[in-house]
C-alpha cells in the first residue's frame, strides 16, 4: 500500500508545475493545459484523501471536477479558436485590449 503522503507530494508537484507554467508560458493553449494539469493534481489529492479516509465524498467531487473541466475545455477552446482567427496568433501578450 502506497502511503497517502506520496500521492499528496506528487499532487503538489503537479500542481506547482501547472501553476508555474500558468504564469510563465506565453501560448494560450499551453496555459490552458497547465490549468488542466492543476485540476488533475487536485483530483489526485481528492482521490488520495478519499482512499485514506475510506469515504466516497472525494471521488464524487472528482467526478464533478471532471465534468466541469470538460465544459470549461469546450468554452475555453472556443475562445482560443476565436482569438486565433482574429489575431493570427496565440501569444497571450498580444491579447491586451483591456489595457488603458
Amino acid at each position, binding site marked *: 500500500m502506497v502511503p497517502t503522503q506520496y500521492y499528496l507530494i506528487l499532487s503538489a508537484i503537479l500542481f506547482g508545475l501547472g501553476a508555474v507554467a500558468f*504564469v510563465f508560458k506565453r501560448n494560450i493553449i499551453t496555459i490552458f493545459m497547465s490549468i488542466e494539469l492543476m485540476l488533475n493534481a487536485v483530483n489526485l489529492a481528492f482521490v488520495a484523501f478519499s482512499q485514506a479516509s475510506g469515504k466516497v465524498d472525494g471521488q464524487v467531487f472528482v467526478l464533478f471536477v471532471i465534468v466541469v473541466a470538460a465544459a470549461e475545455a469546450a468554452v475555453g477552446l472556443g475562445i482560443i479558436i476565436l482569438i486565433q482567427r482574429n489575431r493570427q496568433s496565440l501569444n*497571450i501578450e498580444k*491579447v*491586451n485590449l*483591456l*489595457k*488603458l
Partner: protein
Amino acid sequence: MSTPILDILWIIPLLPLLGAATNGFFGKNWPNKIVNTVALSATGLSFLAALEAVREFFEQGQKLVHKEFFDWIVAGSFRAGFDLQMDQLTAVMVLVVTGVGFLIHIYSAGYMAHEGGYYRFFSYLNLFMFFMLILVLAANYVLLFVGWEGVGLASYLLIGFYFLKKSASGAGKKAFIVNRIGDFGFMLGMFLLFKTFGTLDFAQLFAKAEPWSHESWGVFGTFTVACLLLFTGACGKSAQLPLYVWLPDAMEGPTPVSALIHAATMVTAGVYVVARSHILFTHSETALVVVAIVGCATAFFAATIGLVQTDIKKVLAYSTVSQLGYMFLGCGVGAFGAGIFHLMTHAFFKALLFLAAGSVIHAMGGEQDMRHMGGLSKKIKVTYWTMLIATLAIAGFPPLAGFFSKDSILLAAFNREPGWHPLYVVGLLTALLTAFYMFRLIFLTFHGKQRYDEHHVHVHESPWSMLGPLVILAVLSIIGGWLAAPSFWGGEDHFTAFLAPVFGATHEAEGMTEAAAHSLEIILAIVAVAAALIGLLVAFWLYLKQPGKPSEIAKSLRPIYTTLYNKYYVDEAYGALIVKPLLALSTNVLWKVIDVEAIDGTVNGIAHGATATGDITRRTQSGNTRSYAVWVVIGALAVLIIVFWPAIKALAGGAQ
C-alpha cells in the same frame, strides 16, 4: 358696533400685494393701460380701505385696536404673530402712506409711460406699498421688521430700476448694504428687548417697560443700549449721520420712486420706529440726547451740502436728509407729536417737490442739471406754481404746512432746559439754509436767463395725469399744517392732541404761565420766519440780481466751496477707511487665502488625492493577461497562508 374693515385690517396691505403679484407674474405682455389700472386700483382701494378703517377707528372711540390674525413664529415663550394694530399714530402713517402713495401712483402712470419695464415698475411700487403698510400696521417688532426689510428690498429694486446703468445698480447695492449696518443694530436691539422683557409685542412690551425707572444722562442701562441700537437701525433707514450716504445716491431711481420711497414714506420709517418706541426712549435721557444731537447735526450738515449741489434731485435729496434730521430733533427733545407732524407735512411738500422736479426733468427731456435750466416759469406754469408752494412750505413761511411743523419742533427744542438751546440755534440756522437752497433751486430753475438751447430741448408741460397729483399735493402742503394752527392763537394743537393717547401729554415749559408761553411761541415763530426770509432774500440777491456773484464767492471761498461741492468727501473717506480695507481684506485674506487656499484647496485636494490613488491603483489593471494570472496565484497563496496560519505557526514552533 360693526367695524368691517378693522376686523379685516390685513386687507389694507394685501391689496397692493395682489397688485404686485398680478403685474409681476402676468403683466409682461399687457398693454400699459391694464398694468396701471391694476396697480392704481390696488393702491386706490387700499387707500379707501385705510380711510374706512380710520373712520371706524374714530367711531369706536379711538381705542387701540389690536388684532391677532395668525401665529407666525411660536417657540417656547416667544410668540410673533401676524398681528396688526390701529392707533392714532398708525392712523396718521397709514393715511400718509396710502394717500401720498396713491397720488404718486397716478403720477407714475404718466411719468413712466415712455419707459421700458412699465409692469416691473408698478409691480415693485405695489410691493413697496405692501411692505410699508405692514411696517406701519405691525403690532410687534418682528412683523415691523418684516416690513422694514421689505421696504429696503423694494427700495433696492427701484433704485436699480435702470439696472443696465452701472451707477444705478451700484446705488441700489449701496443703499442695501448701508441699510444692512443699521438693520444689524436694529436686530440686536430687538434681541435685547426680548431678553429683558420677554416679549416683542408693542402693547405688552410697553406696558412692562412703563414702571421701570428712568435712566439719567450718562447711564448705560438696558433702555439706553436698546434705544441706541434701535436708533442705529433708524439712522440707516432714515439716512441720518453717519449712515446717510445712500440716500443721495438713491436718486438714480426714477423720480416718482424718489418722491414716494426716498422722501415721503420709507425714509420716515426710522422716525416712526423712534416715535413708536417712545416709551423706551423717554426712559433713557442719554438715548434722547443722542437722537436729538444726531438729528440736529444731520439737519445742518445735509443743508450745507444742499447749498452747492447743481443736480436738482440731489438738492432735494440732501434737503430730505436735512428734514429727517428735524424729525429726529423733534423726537429727541421729547416732542414726538411734533416729529410725526413734520413727518406728515414733509411727506406732502417733499413728495410734491420731487414730483414737480420730475415734471421739470420731463419738460427738459431728461436734463437734471440746474445750470442748464433757467427761465422755465412761463413755459411750465402749473409745475412752477406747485413747486413754489412746496418751496414756501418747506422754507417755513406761514400759513403753509412746513411753518407749523418746523415751528413746533423748534419750540419744543427751545422749551427744554437751557442746555438744549444750542440745538435750537442750529435748528434755526438750518431753517435759514433750507430757505436759501430751496429758493436757489427755484431761481436757478424757473427764473433768470434761459441757459439751454431751445433748438435741442422742446420744453413742454406735463400731461394732467402728472399735474393732477401736483395740484392735490400743493393743496395739502398749504392746509396740512392747519391741524396744529390754532395753538398759534392760543388754542389747541389738534394734531398733538390727537396723538396724545399714544405719546402722553406733551412737555410743557415748566414754570411758565400760559400767556408767557404763548408770547414766547409767537416770538420764536417770528424769529423762524425772519430766518427763512433772510434765506430767501440772500438767494434772490445772489441768483437773480447778481447772477455773477455766486461763482465769485465760490472762487474766493474755494476750499469751503469745493469741500461742500464734494459733500465733505464723506464718500471718499468711507471709501478709503472702510470700503478699501474691507475690499483688501476680502481679496487678500477671504478670497485668496480662505476661499482659494483653504476651501477650494480642501475640495481640490480631495479630488487630487482620489486621482493620485487612482493613478497608482490603475497600474494593477494592466490589461496584460499574464499579470492577472500572477495576481490569481498570489491571491491563492495569500488565502492559503491565512487559512493555515495557525498550522504554520505550530510547525515553526515545533521546529524550534
